[in-house]
């Protein structure tokens, strides 16, 4: 019950019914009053006019006939219209119409309709005769008017009741029209709340405000659904990238396992090479001192052949391990690789060349093949060594991080490797060509001229850049910038 009262329809109905309950009696009373007054006014007006007319006519009746005819005159008036009582008083003499149905009134006359509640309206007029005045008294029947009033009141009551009924029915219909879209919106909202977010909120309604409301709600729903879909797709993307990350991690682990196997295989191959060397040499030596056709020679040849097979097998293993090592890019920091290359460079450099490592701090991780970077370092150092071979000098190696605008204009971080020498330097014309293949300033037989072009190729393939600053007699400085590996790929630990 409470639910019905609290519902929109219930409220609307209750309000309309309350208005009807309060207004209908007021309306009835008001209309009845108007009807009563109207009828009374009409009655009073007509009886006043009529009695005045009667009085005037009586005045005009000739004197000689008056006394004799007064009875007939009164009867004439009494049989027409509403007159139910007629009497002429002349002093103590009274003439009364024979058709008068009412007794003589006790006193005076009426001035208001339905006065004295005697169902009659009495009027008295002085009628002037020749020498004196007589009084004409007329009584008018009020009952027909009273009946008319009662009938009119019944009609008013019926009309008011009909009005109340119709307005109630209309209120029910209207409340339904108003409530239906609201109820539908509520149902749709419930479904959306249950997760059926594609439920449309648009409602057809003849009420403009309802249409507008549902339109706005639908607009809002689409916005929200769009937002949630965007969020969901973002979540999916994140899950996908998480999956990608896991896949990368898995592949990295796999690769490292393979690399470990490769390293082990490489190490074993090295040992095998050491072992194979005396086997080959001794068996060949023995073969030399043996008669070529003897059974011993044949046995020794088999040893040599087996050793050759073993050598080719080891080479294959080495090739495999190298491929394992270099077939995929690794994420690594420069310092360990540079330190390794530096050990080689230190071995090469003569005493008149000083090697300065300006602090060998570690760099941000880069992506690529450490072996190739190793080659870059060695080649750059050899280049420096050639520039300083005659006069000696100082080779400075520096590692660090740099930052400058990338292709997109955004600041990007780079790992930096710098190799500087105090050698003879270069002419600008030479500098233009140093990265060209087979370009060399060295004497014939000193070098292939491939070194710097190989460096350039490797650095470019790693997505980095190389710059050179130099002037004749003032040395040269090579700066290699390598892009920092994306954070997604975890830095690979160096294979021990």
């Amino acid at each position, binding site marked *: 019950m409470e639910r019905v009262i609290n519902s929109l329809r219930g409220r609307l109905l209750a309000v309309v019914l309350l208005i009807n309950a309060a207004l209908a009696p007021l309306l009835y009373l008001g209309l009845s009053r108007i009807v009563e007054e109207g009828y009374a006014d009409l009655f009073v007006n007509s009886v006043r006019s009529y009695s005045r007319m009667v009085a005037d006519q009586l005045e005009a009746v000739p004197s000689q006939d008056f006394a004799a005819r007064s009875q007939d005159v009164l009867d004439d008036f009494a049989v027409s219209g509403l007159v139910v009582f007629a009497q002429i008083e002349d002093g103590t003499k009274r003439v009364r119409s024979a058709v008068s149905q009412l007794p003589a009134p006790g006193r005076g006359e009426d001035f208001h309709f339905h006065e004295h509640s005697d169902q009659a309206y009495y009027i008295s007029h002085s009628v002037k005769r020749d020498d004196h005045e007589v009084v004409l008294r007329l009584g008018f029947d009020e009952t027909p008017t009273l009946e008319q009033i009662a009938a009119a009141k019944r009609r008013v009551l019926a009309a008011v009741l009909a009005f109340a009924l119709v307005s109630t029915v209309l209120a029910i219909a209207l409340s339904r029209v108003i409530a239906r879209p609201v109820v539908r919106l509520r149902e749709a909202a419930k479904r959306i709340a249950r997760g059926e977010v594609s439920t449309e909120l648009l409602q057809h309604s003849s009420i403009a405000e309802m249409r507008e409301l549902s339109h706005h709600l639908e607009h809002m729903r689409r916005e929200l659904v769009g937002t949630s879909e965007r969020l969901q797709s973002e979540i999916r993307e994140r899950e996908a990238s998480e999956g990608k990350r896991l896949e990368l991690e898995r592949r990295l682990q796999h690769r490292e396992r393979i690399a470990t196997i490769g390293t082990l295989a490489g190490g074993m191959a090295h040992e095998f090479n050491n072992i194979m*060397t005396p086997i080959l*040499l001794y068996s060949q*030596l023995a073969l030399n001192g043996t008669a070529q056709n003897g059974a011993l020679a044949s046995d020794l040849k088999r040893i040599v052949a087996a050793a050759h097979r073993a050598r080719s097998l080891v080479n294959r293993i080495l090739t495999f391990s190298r491929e394992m090592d270099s077939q995929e890019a690794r994420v690594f920091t420069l310092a360990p690789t540079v*330190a390794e290359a530096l050990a080689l*460079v230190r071995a090469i450099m003569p005493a008149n060349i000083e090697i300065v490592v300006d602090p060998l701090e570690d760099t941000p991780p880069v992506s690529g*093949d450490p072996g190739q970077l*190793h080659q870059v370092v*060695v080649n750059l150092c050899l280049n420096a060594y050639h520039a300083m071979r005659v006069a000696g000098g100082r080779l400075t190696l520096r590692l660090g991080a740099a930052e400058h605008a990338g292709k997109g204009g955004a600041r990007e971080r780079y790992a930096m490797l710098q190799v500087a020498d105090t050698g003879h330097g270069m002419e600008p014309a030479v500098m233009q060509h140093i990265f060209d293949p087979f370009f060399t300033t060295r004497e014939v037989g000193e070098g292939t001229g491939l070194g710097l072009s190989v460096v350039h190729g490797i650095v470019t393939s790693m997505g980095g850049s190389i710059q050179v600053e130099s002037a004749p007699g003032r040395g040269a400085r090579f700066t290699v910038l390598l892009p920092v590996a994306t954070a997604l790929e975890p830095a690979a630990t160096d294979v021990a």
Partner: protein
Amino acid sequence: MASIVVVDDEADVGDAIRRVLEHSGFEVRAVNDAEAGLRAIEERPPDIVVTDVIMPRMNGLELVKILRTRFPRVRVIAISGGGSLGIQTYKPDAISTHAYLAAVREVGAQEILTKPFDMDELLAAVRRQLPN
């Protein structure tokens, strides 16, 4: 009679090389590390030094570098084990090997042999470095 000093930390390898060269009529002294090799060379400079590159303490490259300055006439045949130098010793690495070969050439080794090599390859390399 040409004189040859063989330096290899692997005694088996050094001995085998000595046996082959002696068999071919060379005068051979074999030692197991670079310092000993250097002492032998200082004692009586040979015509040819056959040296391993990767050895503990002083490695072959350093030895070759010293020879280049102090005994420029001595010919050097370097023997590569296919490994690399430095921190990650014995880590086979294609580029390192190339770099290593380049380095050995830079410091002045005339010949490079990769283990395991045939007797004939060794003898051919030796004969190429002899004056006549």
